[in-house]
């Protein structure tokens, strides 16, 4: 009864002023639901980015101040040797980490795709490192790299008493210790995506290639892998932005050492802002990280839009 009464009231309302209340409510509900998250994203992404940008142009030191200083902070940042090391490290790490994690991930995916026994077992094993946080990975691997109780200790105890394995204590090679750990952590992730891609390829195409007389290798190279290029791109972009943000792995594994040899932009930002009280320069470094991310993500988004339009165009 009450339902019908309110409905009729709403209907009555509609004749006098606009659409019925219920319809208007129905239109408002999506706005109620979406506004908080949109507002939060706007606040955290755009407002804080703007704020950081402003601080990077200010003379802030321990606390934010708003005396405009222009590009001073950027100039001093780029003049700093440590920032140079951080940026070089970032390039070395990104290159090796992305390429090797993808190569190993693809190899694992291809092996698992061969209709092996206990497939889900292997899949789980290779995907497991991703479930571990970078901090834990970094800590565990720092023990493994540690000469007194890691690989070196193990091999020496096996009888090779002259064996040395001291990646993390060598200025030149410590970065590769981080690279190897990062690859260990992420190749399973790459494998999962590649495997999903391989499985999405139409089985008839593979059969057609079989009848066409193509070897397994040729089928993969010419038919299957070319049709999953979007996945290669997606994996590369995800890994790249992982690597640009690298912080916890470096902190837990080497703590930027030995010396400053494994400084990363993110660890350097932390150092500037919270250890040395140079918020202005730290903000400038953050903006540099943001622009590095933008260089990767903006072209990718444009590519995705273009790709979707092209797909839609061909139906």
């Amino acid at each position, binding site marked *: 009864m009450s339902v019908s009464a309110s409905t009729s009231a709403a209907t009555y309302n509609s004749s006098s002023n606009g659409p019925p209340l219920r319809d208007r409510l129905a239109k408002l509900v999506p706005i109620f639901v979406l506004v908080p998250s949109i507002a939060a994203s706007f606040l955290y992404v755009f407002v804080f980015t703007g704020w950081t940008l402003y601080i990077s142009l200010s003379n802030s030191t321990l606390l934010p101040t708003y005396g405009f200083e222009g590009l001073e902070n950027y100039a001093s940042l780029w003049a700093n040797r440590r920032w140079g090391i951080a940026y070089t490290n970032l390039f070395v790490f990104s290159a090796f980490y992305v390429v090797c994690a993808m190569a190993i991930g693809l190899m694992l995916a291809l092996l698992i795709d061969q209709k092996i026994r206990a497939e889900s077992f292997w899949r789980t094993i290779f995907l497991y490192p991703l479930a571990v946080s970078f901090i834990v990975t970094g800590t565990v691997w720092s023990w493994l790299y540690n000469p007194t109780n890691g690989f070196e200790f193990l091999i020496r105890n096996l009888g090779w008493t002259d064996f040395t394995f001291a990646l993390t204590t060598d200025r030149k090679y410590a970065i590769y210790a981080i690279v190897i750990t990062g690859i260990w952590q992420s190749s399973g992730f790459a494998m999962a995506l590649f495997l999903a891609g391989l499985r999405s390829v*139409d089985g*008839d*195409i593979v*059969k*057609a*290639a*079989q*009848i*066409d*007389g*193509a*070897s397994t290798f*040729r089928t993969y190279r*010419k*038919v299957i892998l*070319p*049709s999953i*290029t979007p996945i290669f791109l997606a994996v590369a972009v995800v890994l790249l932005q992982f690597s640009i943000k690298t912080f916890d792995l470096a902190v837990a594994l080497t703590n930027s050492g030995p010396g400053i040899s494994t400084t990363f932009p993110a660890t350097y930002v932390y150092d500037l802002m919270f250890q040395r009280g140079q918020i202005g320069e730290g903000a400038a470094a953050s903006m540099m990280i943001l622009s590095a991310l933008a260089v990767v993500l903006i072209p990718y988004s444009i590519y995705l839009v273009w790709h979707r339009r092209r*797909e839609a165009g*061909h139906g």
Partner: protein
Amino acid sequence: MASLTIRNIRKNFGAVEVLKGIDLEARTGEFIALVGPSGCGKSTLLAMIAGLETITSGEIYIGDRLVNAVAPKDRDIAMVFQSYALYPTMTVRENMEFGMQSRGVPKDEQKSAIARVAALLQIEALLHRKPGQLSGGQRQRVAMGRALVRDPLLFLFDEPLSNLDAKLRVDMRTEIKKLHHRVGKTTVYVTHDQIEAMTLASRIAVMHQGEVQQFDEPQVIYDSPANMFVAGFMGSPSMNFIPGEIVSDNGRTAVQVKGVDGPTILPLTASHAARLNGSKQVIFGIRPEHVSRSGIGQKADIATIRAPVEVVEPTGAETMAVMRLGDQEITGRFDPDVAPVMGETITLGFDMSHACLFDPASRRLI
């Protein structure tokens, strides 16, 4: 000479037996259609001929070579898939080249083969396009082109027309028939569409539940179906089945069925009567086109029966009418000029020379 011989082929998926001893043979140049409802095992059989599916037991010969253990690429076959299975990242030309490149065919031979096939299928203008830029019908042509650039012993088609819209399907059907006539290659064609099978094939194998129900020329299958499944599957609308009893009517053998005014006697032809062999209960089968208004185009051997008309479905060229016969519905095909109207009770004439009698227990043709 036979291009394809299949002997007692069986296939199990785990405990499920999907093919239960298939015997088939295709003479050189023949067009064999494998037809049946989904799940009858026809596509599995084709995949086994192609070598894409292992054989549980039995033998497959292509030409006179036993191919049970031969890899698909060495079987000298070409296949057209239902999904077309074109390589999405390659152009039409590259799609057609791919197989020849894999086999190391010389470059100029590849060129001339593609030119020949492209002209045959009229796809020259599409050679530089990718499959994503083609319409369904064009993809279908390219898929056939990819099969045709080789000169295989055997062509395999796996429901090649089922992804096309109705009109295009009819056009492509004609094309395939023309093409087969011109190329003259032995072809095995899987379809669930009995009209495709009837129009294209030189012989049809009707499959059901993993067995070949009948393997014969289309007209033979249509006129004397081996059992009730074949009779019901081939032809649209399906054959009418009416349970009846064999009686003697003034010294003439007849079948008695339930009519609107009680039991009705349908006198049998002499040849039907001779084949009865003492059966008492039968299923009387008659195709809709052999049901007419009594008194129109009268021939010999017409049995009459009265029936109320329940539904009338005009299609333009002809009008289908559903009539009630006891607790059974039967369909008739009428010329629109003499079609009955809904609610009318008409006197039907059954053309007894085209009737079929089935054994109710074994469901086989008597």
